[in-house]
């Protein structure tokens, strides 16, 4: 029984979905951890990345590379649209606008009038063929007891490969003079301005970069699931990613990756545990289901609150930095 729970948790922690979330979290870390931008609509970038990929391929029969490019372009455009009105204002405005925009995008892709393009609530399929055609994992059972299918193995390898490469790139960016300007904006944007830094431009670059990472996360996500539907992009996705960043430690290179793995391990373990307990009939007359889902989300919320209050620097963050955050 314990074994089931641990395997479930491990399977989720290293799976392709976790890799997609890691990309989201790396992007959010650029926004929140390094620049101090409050993007509560990261799932919106994920959505445009996913649909940007799926629509050209599934609806217009374009090759996969066109889809990949259009997914990236969509994330850039969304960042420009969101940033232009809000990045000159208080941080709260970006928070409100991004969360609203992400929901707008979900409404729009659900809308029946856009069904010809987005597939409405049914979504789109059949855009991942090219991706799996080049898979080097022909078998159907890998990693022993974890029992990954060949496709899952391939999606996982690509997803985590991209996530690790990009987090190294982000780490190097943040140690460059460019990253220094970003961190100065996080600390005090007026100080950065007084030293001749075009704060708006840097914030926009940060928003675009983190948004593109979210878009890439979205592509990994939909490729691994081989389907895309509007309700895969609920607002809670962003908050999961936030919790992962804070859990792992903001403004650190490893934080988003470690936070993601740990988050998925804990949450899936919890879900699986509750499900196993309930299904084993310890509590007679009840089935799992909704309760498991709701419980998980409540725990995520409580975890986010507790982390923010007691350990905002995350599990890997610097204690001294935390102390200085008191303003």
């Amino acid at each position, binding site marked *: 029984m314990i074994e089931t729970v641990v395997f479930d948790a491990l399977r989720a922690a290293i799976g392709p979905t976790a890799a997609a979330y890691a990309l989201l979290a790396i992007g959010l870390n650029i926004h929140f951890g390094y620049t101090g931008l409050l993007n509560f609509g990261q799932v919106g970038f994920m959505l445009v990345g996913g649909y940007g990929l799926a629509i050209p391929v599934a609806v217009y029969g374009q090759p996969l590379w066109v889809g990949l490019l259009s997914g990236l372009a969509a994330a850039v455009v969304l960042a420009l649209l969101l940033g232009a*009105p809000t990045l000159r204002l208080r941080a709260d405005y970006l*928070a409100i*606008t991004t969360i609203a925009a992400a929901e707008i995008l979900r409404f729009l892709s659900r809308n029946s009038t856009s069904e010809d393009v987005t597939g409405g609530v049914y979504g789109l399929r059949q855009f991942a063929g090219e991706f799996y055609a080049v898979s080097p994992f022909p078998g159907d059972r890998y990693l022993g007891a974890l029992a990954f299918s060949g496709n899952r193995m391939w999606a996982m390898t690509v997803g985590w490969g991209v996530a690790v490469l990009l987090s190294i790139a982000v780490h190097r960016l943040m140690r460059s003079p460019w990253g220094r300007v970003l961190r100065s904006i996080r600390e005090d944007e007026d100080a950065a301005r007084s030293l001749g830094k075009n704060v708006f431009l840097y914030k926009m670059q940060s928003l675009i970069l983190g948004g593109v990472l979210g878009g890439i996360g979205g592509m990994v996500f939909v490729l691994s699931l081989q389907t895309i539907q509007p309700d895969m992009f609920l607002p809670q996705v962003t908050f999961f990613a936030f919790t992962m960043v804070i859990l792992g430690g903001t403004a650190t290179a490893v934080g988003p990756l470690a936070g993601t793995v740990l988050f998925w391990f804990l949450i899936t373990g919890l879900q699986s545990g509750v499900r196993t307990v309930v299904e084993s009939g310890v509590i007679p007359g009840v089935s799992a289901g*909704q309760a498991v889902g709701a419980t998980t989300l409540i725990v995520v919320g409580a975890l986010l609150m507790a982390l923010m209050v007691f350990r905002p620097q995350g599990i890997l963050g610097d204690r001294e930095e935390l102390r200085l955050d008191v303003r």
Partner: protein
Amino acid sequence: MRDPSVTPARPRPDVRARLGAVIGLLAALLLPVAALAQSSETIAGRLSDGGEPVAGVLIVVTAEDGTPVGEVRSGADGAWELGLPGPGAYVVELDVASLPDGVTLRDPDRTTVAVNVFENARSAAVFALGEPVDQGPTFGRLLAQNAVNGLKFGLIIAMTAVGLSLIFGTTGLVNFAHGDLVTVGAFLTFFLNVTLGLRFLIAVPLAVLTSAAFSGGLDRFLWRPLRARQTGLIAMLVVSIGLGFVLRHLALLFFGGSRSSYGEYTLQTALEIGLVRLQPTEIVVMGLSLAILTGVGLLLNRTRLGKAMRAVADERDLAESSGIDVQRVILAVWILGGALTGIGGTFLGLIESVDYLMGFRLLLLMFAGVILGGLGSAYGAMVGGIVVGLVSEVSTVWFSSQIKYVWALLVLAVILLVRPQGILGRRERIG
């Protein structure tokens, strides 16, 4: 509304322990009830023909691999819902033979619908029946009806947004849990009225009082200790997101994911008033909302407490140095905000329905209203809320009602570009 025992906050050694207790309590609430509800994934739909519900139609759901999952018949309101064993792909079939005489599928070939259901999702399977509905009412009627609906909706947004704006003004916190306070209010009424079986008119004031007390308790035992620890505003904002998450899914846990209605005042005959049709409850809701907004306006304008609230919102340091007990004013703002979300949630549940996401959906519109009117301004929130309600409802005259919120949020984007301080807000310094 005043609490004489409240003293200004000062850092306390046991603040950590208290916060821990609050968060722990919230988390501990779950486990005993974790097993109450049914499965979390459902497929649902509503059948109607020319606006009339179609009851008794057989819907059969099978898993993608052909395993039967279950069947269900549409109820008197045409609605049907079926719990699923878990996420996955399903095929929903409508049994044409069970359709009442004279009712047919709009597309006779479309007897099945494939639905992909995600974790915790309530997915829809849509079967269109009969001929497309006529554009019955004239344009003038349509516009008038939508304008009145918008006003009704806008008044509720305005009521709930006042608290959001005042909390921002007095503490600087953008409370992302504010929408979920609306949900809490609606479910408090639902709990008292439906679960406990109290009369609606008794349940409502009790729910509003509880909601106000709950909101005040949040300030006293969560936000004030956080302020005392000098927690940054961004950190508090993230805490409010976590709190909203907890509240929202507690509602899901206790009351399930489907929409429900109160036990009374639900089935009413609409009255024709000039160009528009309104149910008596809707008229009462609009009247009461207007009265409450006027009352809040008078409170802010005429009473000592209200003036103190506005003073703290305008210039906190000044207010503090002129002898206003800022912590007490903030507590009062939270209590007022909680009472208003309690009423707003109840009204929204009455004119629409109660579900665990109702407040979160409203939150985005509240934000739009608050920014439209000017962050921090109570009157601005009222005006902005009403405008947002009007815009989203009136848009359905020309556009699909599925995207009616999009227009309200577009207004928000335009305001940010043109006049970021909002209609009634003060000019902010812009770098």
